[in-house]
């Protein structure tokens, strides 16, 4: 039994590697994502200064220095090193991104599986809930939620999880509909497998690549959402995030003089979101081989 488990796990990881073979964009995405995770974990070792540390030179604050070898991305109005801020900002982005994406894909996959497999009234009900989730304006909902429940990192994650599951739910439901009458499912039904068992062991493994695909895409959306919230001033006050760096430039209207202050955090967001998109796309190709041609 244990042997079988390790074999299965080995197979699982091998097939994950297989996904990125021959898909150069997917591979690039995976590498960029891995770099950001490393950056988030080892931030204190990489960043030359603390994220909020004010740097003095000969007793004077180093305000608004343009990029140089000492300060790769320049400094802020408060004399903080932007390079260090961007490094530390990856922590907020990766944490919010990964946690919300996991939450979104768990809820979305569960709803999709149940809705698609059972059909009928369950399906009709769940799909109305999906419609409702689509009708709720995403960002305003989270703004109000966070404003009422408190500006914490967890509230942002929960807010994203509460709404974004709608897309994977819809897509996975469609996939389940096409799977549930296939011969291998029929076979286990004839053998007397329970519904629960069929969903878990026959259908779920086949929608897993789709789940991963939407996990990666949801990560991108979550990171953008966190950036938007922080930019509006609803970020977690205890965290340095890319959106918050941009919020500070904007409120003192420093983009008129300090282009470097705007550029670096924005490019960091683009890179990380893009990596999620590439990874998502690589997994989507597994379920939809037609995509390989285009």
């Amino acid at each position: 039994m244990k042997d079988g488990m390790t074999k299965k796990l080995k197979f699982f990881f091998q097939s994950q590697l297989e996904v990125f073979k021959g898909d150069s964009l997917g591979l690039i995405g995976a590498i960029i994502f891995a770099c950001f995770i490393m950056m988030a974990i080892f931030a204190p070792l990489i960043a030359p200064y603390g994220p909020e540390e004010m740097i003095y030179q000969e007793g004077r604050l180093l305000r608004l220095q343009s990029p140089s070898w000492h300060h790769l991305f320049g400094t802020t109005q408060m004399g903080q090193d932007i390079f260090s801020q961007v490094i530390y900002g990856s922590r907020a982005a990766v944490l919010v991104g990964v946690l919300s994406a996991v939450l979104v894909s768990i809820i979305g996959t569960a709803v999709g599986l149940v809705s698609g497999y059972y059909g009928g009234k369950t399906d009709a009900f769940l799909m109305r809930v999906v419609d409702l989730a689509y009708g709720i304006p995403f960002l305003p909902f989270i703004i109000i939620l966070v404003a009422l429940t408190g500006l914490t990192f967890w509230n942002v994650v929960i807010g994203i999880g509460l709404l974004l599951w709608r897309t994977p739910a819809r897509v996975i439901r469609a996939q389940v509909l096409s799977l549930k009458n296939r011969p291998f499912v029929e076979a286990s039904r004839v053998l007397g497998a329970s519904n629960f068992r069929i969903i878990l062991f026959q259908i779920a493994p086949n929608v897993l690549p789709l789940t991963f695909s939407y996990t990666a895409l949801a990560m991108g959306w979550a990171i953008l959402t966190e950036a938007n919230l922080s930019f509006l001033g609803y970020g977690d006050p205890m965290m340095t995030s890319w959106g918050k760096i941009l919020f500070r430039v904007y409120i003192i209207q420093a983009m008129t003089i300090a282009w470097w202050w705007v550029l670096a955090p924005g490019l960091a967001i683009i890179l990380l979101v893009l990596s999620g998109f590439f990874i998502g796309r690589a997994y989507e190709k597994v379920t939809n081989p037609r995509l390989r041609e285009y």
Partner: protein
Amino acid sequence: MGKKSFIIKRIIQMLITLFLLVTIVFLMFRLLPGDPLAMYINSDMPVEVQKALMHRFGLDKPLHEQYVLYLKNLLVGDFGQSFHYGQAVTSLVAERFWNTIILMGIGIGLAYVIGCILGVLAAWKRGSKFEAISIILTLSIQSAPLFWVGIILIMIFGIWLNLLPLGGIREAGIKLTSTFEKFYSLDFLVHMILPATTLAIYYMGTPFLIMRSAMLEVMNEEFIEIVKAKGLKTWQVTFKHAMRNSLLPVVTMLTVMISFIMGGQVMLETIFRWPGIGMEIVSAVNTRDYPMAQALFIMMGVISLIVNFVVDLLYHYLDPRVTYE
């Protein structure tokens, strides 16, 4: 099922969703921790004054009575009084609504037109440098936050080139004589260029990518071979026959995008100081003006629902093969 009963069924579905949305908004503002009157009622106030205020806003009634009253008021379009402005919410929202709709309509319209044309061109020039560059560029823009794209455009055109206004909806001090003048004056158009361009650039990625792959798919179908055999030129085949059949997925995509577009509007209007419902909802939440926030939120939901409904109808119009079920 016939066309009429399909439309009726969709309208009923939409009304049910709307009812649920309105209920969720009610519960959100009343049940979540955080007192909506916190900014309005000062805890230093005498208890009698606090009670009087609670009574004035009907907040001393039990929850179910508040809910019934809330629904009754919504039915006649009454969203109550704004805490911040001290005026009826409905008239305050109406003006901002049109500011948003005009900007959003033009921006998204442009995004769709440009995106679709680029998508067709990219599919046509399969494997060219143009295709590769346009894909990377649109993907990167889409991966940036909307407000960042806006700030970059403000930096380039507003600050360095000093060509366009940095924000706002009109020059300060201009007096309006009519509503017509408000939306058709040159000043208004000039102020709209940057925010509309931001929207167009930001949202063209989705129609572009979908159009491109739909075109590649359609180009392989048999009827295209027949049209080609008829002797039509390549551009005629591409634009007249293939493009029309590829529009379907592009249009459907709008239903998924609209909820994000409403959120994007919040960011866009905030950085361009465009007085629409997006900018207002942020200031309403900041000032804890909750009748206002509530009305704006419902308004945004209604826009999403209506767009969904219209797209559904369009879908059936565009593809005659789809049956009304």
